């Protein structure tokens, strides 16, 4: 099936074939580097609280929905939050974790969650309170290089990471920065410096590339990447606000279901799941060509889930009525 991870002819063990394991390792390594060398200003208590809250929320929501405990995505969200979210009060970090994991379970359209969990948590917290911020400039140049190498290596190994989104986003964003520099008559050292941002790489390879929140088809993903880049450039240079990437992704994520309807493709599956059987498998193999019914979360990602639809359905119906 398209999108499954490939690694060395399938000789590697199952868990290693999962790109999320590599992502967790990469994020954890980055966090360790940031805390030890770059003086991130995140306390170990905050790290522990963030990760713990993410895992706890995953467990609780999973139980409520009747699915097994799946810690990998929760760990990724938690680690990303540790890397990006800054606050003086660790309680906000825990709240962020709960928001992130909760959005994955509750904000769904046709079986896919709409927002990247970390991104959702960041945006909600930034809007809701004055007590949190994102430090865009904390990485520096040497971290950028190391990160770049890690990401590039990961891409080679795990082609399932939907690199087309990352690449289309990066290319589009870089072109816009260069175009702006040319228009202003600035030397190219300026867009080059603007691109040397660790936050940009983190965003491009770990956030926007989340296979569960990007369009199903390649054309859709490329378009999505360009859209997010345009949004980010607008926020950064039109509205003069920092962290344009975060706002842009949040604003563009609701467009993913639209893109899925216009440009249908096969739904991505994390490797290692039991393949769907029967009618559901047929539906999945045909992709999202059938118009998704908004408000009804279909069991996506393999037939392993039992068709229980409690809390999520009611919440979505509620949202639709208010929205």
């Amino acid at each position, binding site marked *: 099936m398209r999108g499954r991870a490939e690694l060395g002819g399938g000789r590697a063990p199952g868990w290693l074939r999962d790109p999320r394991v590599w992502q967790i390792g990469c994020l954890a390594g980055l966090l360790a580097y940031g805390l030890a060398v*770059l*003086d991130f*200003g995140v306390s170990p208590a905050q790290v522990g609280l963030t990760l713990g809250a993410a895992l706890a929320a995953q467990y609780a929501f999973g139980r409520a929905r009747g699915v097994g405990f799946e810690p990998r995505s929760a760990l990724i969200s938690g680690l990303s939050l540790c890397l990006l979210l*800054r*606050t*003086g009060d660790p309680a906000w970090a825990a709240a962020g974790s709960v928001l992130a994991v909760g959005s994955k379970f509750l904000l769904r359209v046709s079986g896919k969650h709409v927002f990247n969990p970390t991104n959702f948590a960041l945006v909600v917290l930034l809007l809701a309170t*004055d*007590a*949190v*911020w994102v*430090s*865009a*400039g*904390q*990485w*520096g*140049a040497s971290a950028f290089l190391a990160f770049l190498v890690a990401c590039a290596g990961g891409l080679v190994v795990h082609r399932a990471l939907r690199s087309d989104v990352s690449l289309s986003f990066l290319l589009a964003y870089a072109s816009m920065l260069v175009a702006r520099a040319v*228009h*202003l*008559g*600035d*030397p190219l*050292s*300026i867009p*080059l*410096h*603007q691109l040397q*941002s660790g936050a940009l790489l983190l965003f491009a390879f770990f956030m926007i590339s989340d296979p569960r929140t990007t369009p199903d088809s390649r054309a859709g993903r490329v378009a999505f990447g360009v859209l997010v880049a345009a949004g980010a450039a607008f926020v950064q240079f039109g*509205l*003069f*606000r*920092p*962290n344009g990437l975060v706002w842009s992704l949040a604003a563009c994520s609701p467009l993913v279901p639209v893109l899925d309807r216009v440009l249908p493709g096969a739904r991505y599956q994390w490797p290692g799941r039991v393949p769907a059987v029967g009618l559901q498998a047929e539906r999945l193999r045909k992709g999202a060509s059938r118009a998704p019914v908004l408000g009804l979360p279909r069991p996506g990602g393999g037939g392993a889930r039992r068709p229980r639809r409690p809390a999520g359905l009611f919440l979505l119906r509620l949202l639709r009525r208010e929205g």
Partner: protein
Amino acid sequence: MTMANDFRGDPQEFAVVIPVPTVVRRDQIEVTDQAVLDHLDAYSAPRLVEYFDEDPCRPVREDYLLSMRAAPAPAGERDAPSRGVTVEARYTVGEYDILVLSAKESGGLEAWLVENGYRIPRGARGVLASYLRQGMRFFVARVNLREKARLGFTYLRPLRVAYESPKFMLPVRLGTVNAQGPQELFVFALTRRGRVETTNYRTVRLPTGMDLPPFVKEEFGEFYRAMFAEQVRREDMRAVFLEYAWDMAWCDPCAADPLSPEELRKLGVSWLDEPGGQSPRARPGFGGPVDVFLTRLHVRYDAAHFPEDLVFQETADRETFQGRYVLRHPWIGAAVCLAGRQYREDLDRRREREAQSLATLTGWSLEEVRRKGEAPARITAEPARGFWGWLLRK
């Protein structure tokens, strides 16, 4: 924004050109006291704390505090040169003649400035063009010699410009054109919510809190310059350094008297009179409770390492930070007891640690530091007599 430039030369030749995001009205421009800025500098400067070791045989302790201002910034003079140039406003404020200019294109602006007696460095035209295309105006200040003579000031006072803009940035590119070597800049940010940091460059905290050999007291300025240069070198001159971040309602230790509300108003703090403008954290006996957070940033920059203007954001971080260095003076005098012997051993180890700290911080050679640290006054221990003397010699 209040600007103070260190300028050496004939005042007639002084001019400053700052890109500003909007046209500035007369009531938004003011000349302020240098004294207020000096006070702010002294208040937030890195400080030395001295401790005097007690007699190891009998405990007594006194603390003293010294504060040294950081090295003065040899800030860049900005000469900027302007047809198709519109003089949007023209004022005389204090000893300055102020113009607010906009232009259709940078060649015309450059020509206009040159014709009007401003010396523009080569290469400024490209930078001027960039600012013009971003829709910025130019705030040009020149010394009006007659006013200066009438007012009787012998130095150039700082200029304050007030404006509201979503662009929280500091334009530094004009100053790097044709500059000889790196420039230095101190940014003092007074905010309500918390610490200010740059978003397009890494903000690094200066190393702080270490024990240093006592001879540094005589050489604090030199030490600080060397330490800053070494940190700049380590970060490859790509970082902005945080030297002070503190709630102005209190300080510990205080390197200078706290700023009065009047001084803060002169610096542009406009929210002191609002409800909630008074901080609940203030200690009694202070100059009045204030809800102001002070950030002090120190940048050494040039065009190659800092191609972009500095862009800031205000965070919610109210964690305190200051440059604070500790000197521990050894006990000078007889220390004739068991504890005294232990003290001497500890002292040797401590001396070595302090020397290593200093060498690492400043890049000075360890031998040099050790040599300087051979203080003339050392512990003298007379050979003890009697039973205790015998015991100690064991």
